[in-house]
């Protein structure tokens, strides 16, 4: 097992190298020049000043040379400074990533907490009343555009009912609140973003869970278990469920990169200063150092998450565990 983990970690390095090479090539091939300045169309900014800036950012050098420089610096974990405000890129990401990760973990948790029981329930009586209603609801949730749903919920809970704040992550008077008050404040602010970002996932996951559970329940070993006289509860959760949940873990691993990328939508709608928006703005501004650093960090996170998914696979399925 230990060897397996080590081997998987070693595999990450060439993969990262490939990702960074490709990304560097793609952002440099994309038309448009980097920087807010080049693109600001401000006559007060003189051509000489721009030339000076290009030199300082090394944009006058060929792409392969810049990539080599970037690689050398990144090897010692120096991601450089952002073109837009000259702050260390790593600092910019560090202050934005926690919010995004928190919201994504919370919504991941919510997705599993809601999708698994829903899927199991539906699978017990396929085409029953509950299954039919849930199918309709799930398709509706899956198809609905997130930003639109977010705005509707904000309007309903924030303006009509005045129960929840509309946007941001803290209130204006946050610093004057008691510790418990602070927790409540953050909870109130995160409620809608987490809900909205998990609804689509719940819908998809519940569907997967349902079909996977139906499949598992049709297996001979279930009949065997029932024949043994095991309780229905034990049949469902000990025998069918364990087998049915495995594909879900694979799917979750595959959906992780989408979570960070998809964050840009709810981060914009809810005015949350997260990494998704940072990344999006960096791309629009052609802020090369920031784009590259985010690519590396997000792919690292994704690969780690995939690895974790594979490991939990092994944990759940003894057959896989014993082979290695």
């Amino acid at each position, binding site marked *: 097992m230990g060897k397996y983990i080590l081997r998987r970690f070693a595999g990450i390095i060439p993969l990262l190298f490939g990702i960074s090479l490709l990304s560097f090539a793609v952002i440099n091939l994309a038309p448009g020049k980097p920087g807010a300045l080049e693109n600001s169309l401000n006559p007060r900014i003189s051509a000489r000043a*721009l030339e000076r800036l290009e030199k300082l950012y090394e944009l006058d050098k060929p792409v392969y040379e810049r990539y080599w420089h970037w690689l050398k610096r990144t090897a010692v974990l120096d991601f450089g400074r952002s073109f837009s405000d000259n702050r260390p890129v790593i600092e910019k990401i560090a202050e934005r990533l926690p919010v995004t990760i928190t919201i994504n973990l919370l919504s991941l948790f919510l997705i599993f907490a809601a999708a698994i029981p829903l899927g199991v329930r539906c699978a017990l009586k396929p085409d029953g009343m509950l299954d039919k209603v849930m199918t309709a609801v799930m398709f509706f949730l899956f198809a609905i555009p997130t930003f639109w749903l977010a705005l509707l919920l904000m309007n309903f809970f924030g303006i009509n009912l005045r129960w929840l704040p509309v946007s941001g992550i803290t209130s204006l008077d946050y610093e004057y609140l008691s510790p418990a008050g602070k927790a409540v404040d953050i909870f109130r602010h995160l409620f809608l973003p987490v809900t909205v970002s998990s609804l689509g996932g719940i819908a998809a996951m519940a569907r997967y869970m349902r079909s996977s559970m139906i499949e598992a329940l049709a297996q001979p070993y279930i009949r065997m278990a029932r024949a043994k006289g095991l309780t229905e509860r034990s049949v469902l959760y000990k025998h069918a469920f364990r087998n049915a949940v495995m594909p879900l873990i694979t799917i979750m691993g595959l959906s992780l990169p989408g979570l960070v990328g998809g964050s840009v939508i709810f981060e914009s709608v809810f005015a949350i200063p997260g990494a998704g928006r940072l990344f999006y703005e960096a791309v629009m501004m052609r802020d090369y150092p920031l784009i590259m650093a985010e690519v590396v960090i997000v792919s690292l996170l994704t690969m780690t998450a995939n690895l974790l998914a594979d490991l939990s696979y092994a944990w759940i399925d003894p057959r896989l565990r014993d082979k290695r």
Partner: protein
Amino acid sequence: MPMLASDIASAGICGYIFNGLVKYDKDLNLTGDLAERWEVLDGGLQIVFYLRKGVFWQDGVPFTSRDVDFTYRKMVDPQVRTPYSGDFERVERLETPDDHTVRVFYKEPFAPALSSWSVSIVPEHLLEKEDLNTSVFSRVPVGTGPYKFRSWKTQEKIELDANENYFLHRPNIDRVVQRVIPDPSTLFLELQTGGVDLCGLTPLQYTRQTDTPYFRGEYRKFRLPGDTYVYLGYNLRSPLFSDIRVRKALNLAVDKDEIIKIVLLGLGTVSTGPFTPQSWAFNPSVKPSPCDPPGALRLLKEAGWEDSDGDGILDNNGRKFEFTILTNQGNEERIKTAEIIQRRLSDIGIKVKIKVVEWSVFIGEFVNKRDFDVILLGWALPREPDNYDIWHSSRTREGEFNFAGYTNPEVDLLLLEARRVFDQQKRRELYRKIQELIYADQPYMFIYVPDSLYVVHRRFREVAPAAAGIGYNFIDWWVPPAEQRYRMR
């Protein structure tokens, strides 16, 4: 760091924390800020600023002429990543005979130089040993302005506290929180919960969505003349648009009032040249051309364009009159404007395609490389009217701002002259002439000047819109105690 800030939002924050030597008053005239008064000597070769006495930096250190000298040296320092060095590279030298006098010597008279001293002055004592590009000062600025920096959460909010010792007077409002809300719909929802006290509005929000009893009770809306104009810029190098009769005809064929009615819901005025009506350089005697499609067809016929093969599209020696309007993504108003123009030009037999591209591609690949027929774009005008960089014939190379490729020797001379003359009355005459000539040449089809629309919560008193907008007297705003919503603890 004010001199590194290149976007409007950071410039706004700098305005709270820092001061320049001069500033624009509510009627958009230059007036003293950190300088009490100034003199222009030797026909503009020398400007002497007499600084206000008894001004302190927010950390208690006195402000002196050495800070001005320091700011100037940093503005022209090649190591400092400022985009605004241009105006200061004209300075020959700067002297500080005493703590409260600054003498600036210029290589040649340059009238816009005076307004360039509205640049934020930064403290020498905190920055002399720092690398301005990377200094932590950028995250905890100290200025001389009405508000002190309190906290900054990137892309979330900035908090400022009143400066007790501000040299004019302590601002009445104790704390200002500026939030970043990227999505306009969210901003509008926040407004409806009362979570935002001051923000800009779109024309649709101004006319329709804020027309509710709640809004009328809680907020006041302001509509002020804008300082941007939207235009259709021709590529004058293209044989299609080099003929002035063609450009005049296109101008006659498009009804700008219709565009304003549809796109801005009536909240704007027809643009009549490179200045907007609130500027002192604006020439009110230049009137917009009427909408006259038959007249447009007559002019086009004169220029050789006629529908000779009866397919509904004008042609000239076998070439059809068709072109592409290029504009940037993300600006609904411009895209709608392009569509109306497309419709009105197809009415007279001109085929127009519209292409919308992402901003940095738009600028980098099309505008800067002159690879376009026609672009639909806007200019946001600074208060200093000098627009040499947009209209002078020497500014047509790649990356420069005369992308239309406009050349008119008379305008060239006037632009230069207007840079040399310091007397505002005389400069006004020159700019008025420039506006007349440019409007007559139609290098752009000048379309509209959108109004600036704001909403402010009713509890704020002393909000007095003027030519300069609403923010100029912010330190005088106040809220009666009974209506105060947030209290400092």
